[in-house]
């Protein structure tokens, strides 16, 4: 599939999203669809660092919440419109990404993962103690009248379709470029990559920054979606686990893996939330993840590749 073909598919998906938005089906479809698409963005963004470069980030909630709280700050301070919020949330999270990029100089493997997890805890503590954005008691957003669309649910759903398409296209472009090739090299053997003249530090900084950017983008519309944000919901452990589990289930080496993983697991969680209980979500992830690690360690895309090779 060439770049132009991918762009066409991307535009088609956005068109489909708009069509679905116009359809006016049960509002819950948009509500649940938003979450699944949000996970497409999160899983894809996570995978740029965790899958392509092999640096496992446990701090997804930190980036996601930073996007959400940047929005809250800008709504409080400037009544900034949604596009500004998304861009700012992305940029602030990208800065944090750049910061953890420098961590990779000293921390590799599991130590890097632990540091990112700690980052999430530290940031949550800071937010809890920051009254301006709601502190521990949370922040309630009163949404203005919805522009263009029938309801906020439909608007946010359409927005997420577009964000997911953009994120996936960017990840796919990176994967097929020299940057992606260099990231694959440092994932496999960082010292060897260094020998070949691959600029490993610059590539890692690029990966952490870009991954951070899109994780922040995923979190930026969150206040509009839930209208009530508290630290424990923005820094939910679910984001850390899903961000890692979805690419692993789909397969981490290609852009398609996180998309498949997010759609499958995200949908399963939404169905379980309605039919049984949302408390079941983490359990589902856990069981599915164990199954995949044992039966298909390279995810669904890896499994298909293996079967084809035979």
């Amino acid at each position, binding site marked *: 599939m060439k770049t132009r073909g991918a762009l066409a598919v991307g535009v088609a998906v956005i068109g489909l999203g708009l069509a679905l938005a116009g359809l006016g089906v049960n509002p819950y479809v948009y509500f649940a669809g938003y979450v699944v698409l949000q996970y497409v963005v999160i899983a894809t963004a996570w995978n740029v660092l965790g899958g392509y470069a092999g640096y496992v980030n446990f701090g997804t909630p930190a980036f996601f919440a930073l996007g959400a709280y940047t929005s809250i700050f800008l709504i409080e301070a400037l009544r900034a419109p949604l596009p500004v919020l998304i861009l700012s949330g992305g940029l602030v999270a990208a800065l944090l990404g750049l910061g953890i990029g420098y961590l990779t100089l000293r921390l590799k493997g599991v130590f890097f993962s632990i540091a990112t997890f700690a980052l999430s805890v530290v940031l949550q503590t800071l937010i809890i103690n920051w009254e301006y954005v709601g502190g521990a008691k949370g922040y309630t957003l009163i949404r203005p009248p919805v522009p263009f669309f029938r309801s906020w649910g439909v608007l946010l759903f359409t927005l997420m379709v577009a964000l997911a398409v953009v994120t996936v296209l960017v990840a796919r472009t990176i994967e097929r470029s020299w940057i992606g090739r260099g990231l694959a090299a440092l994932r496999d053997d960082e*010292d060897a990559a260094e020998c*070949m003249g691959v600029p490993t530090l610059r590539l890692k900084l690029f990966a952490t920054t870009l991954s951070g950017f899109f994780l922040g983008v995923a979190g930026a519309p969150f206040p509009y979606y839930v209208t009530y944000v508290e630290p424990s919901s923005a820094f939910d452990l679910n984001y850390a686990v899903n961000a890692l589990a979805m690419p692993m289930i789909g397969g981490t080496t290609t852009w398609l893996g996180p998309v498949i993983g997010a759609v499958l697991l995200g949908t399963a969680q939404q169905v379980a939330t309605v039919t049984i209980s949302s408390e079941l979500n983490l359990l589902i992830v856990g069981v599915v993840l164990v199954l995949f690690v044992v039966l298909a360690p390279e995810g669904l895309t890896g499994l298909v590749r293996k079967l084809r090779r035979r």
Partner: protein
Amino acid sequence: MRDVAAGYGAVRVLHGVSIEVREGETVALLGTNGNGKSTLIKSIMGMLTPDAGEIYLESGGTRTDLTRRSTEEIVDLGIALVPEGRRLFPRLTVEENLLLGAYRPGARADIDRNLPFCFEAFPVLRERRRQLAGSMSGGEQQMLAVARALMSSPRILLVDEPSVGLAPILVTRVIAKIRELKERYQLTVLMAEQNFNQATKIADRGYIIVHGRIEFEGRTTAELRENELVKKYYLGV
């Protein structure tokens, strides 16, 4: 390189090492384990900054100091490394490994020329281009490591311990291949090796490094063979 001292933290490995490799030569750097061969190679590649001394490249009357340069710049200057223990990318395919040898923007333009060259010089790599590098045999992996280094169109090839972990027959083959390629591309080769007999097969001359110091400089391989140190370390006389 002149009077180079280098090491890791408080541990000094090289003590005032001076060696010279002239254009078109094959120079062997001989020494048993732990004498500083790899440290010397790493210093040249910019993966280790020497504490003292200078490393430079002279070509066409211009002199380039390598001491403070990054590995990326050094690869751009036409120096490529076949690292010790091969250091392939095991979960990437043979072809991907080769392409990564041409990562530097300057080398990417020559891929269309260099890739067929590599496949011609190493037909087995063409057969296995879609195979994962880690699934090949040791000898094939060493060939791939050499081919990967050539993908950057180097003028100078540094080869660190090509014989490690290979059966003697394969070592002979790898060494012969290096000689063949050297002649074909007019490469300058610096080879660190502990296998004296294999190294002197293709070297024009060599140095013996002991405990981080150059203890002997052999202007010919015959001189090396006659040297007392060689007798002591390698021939057990």
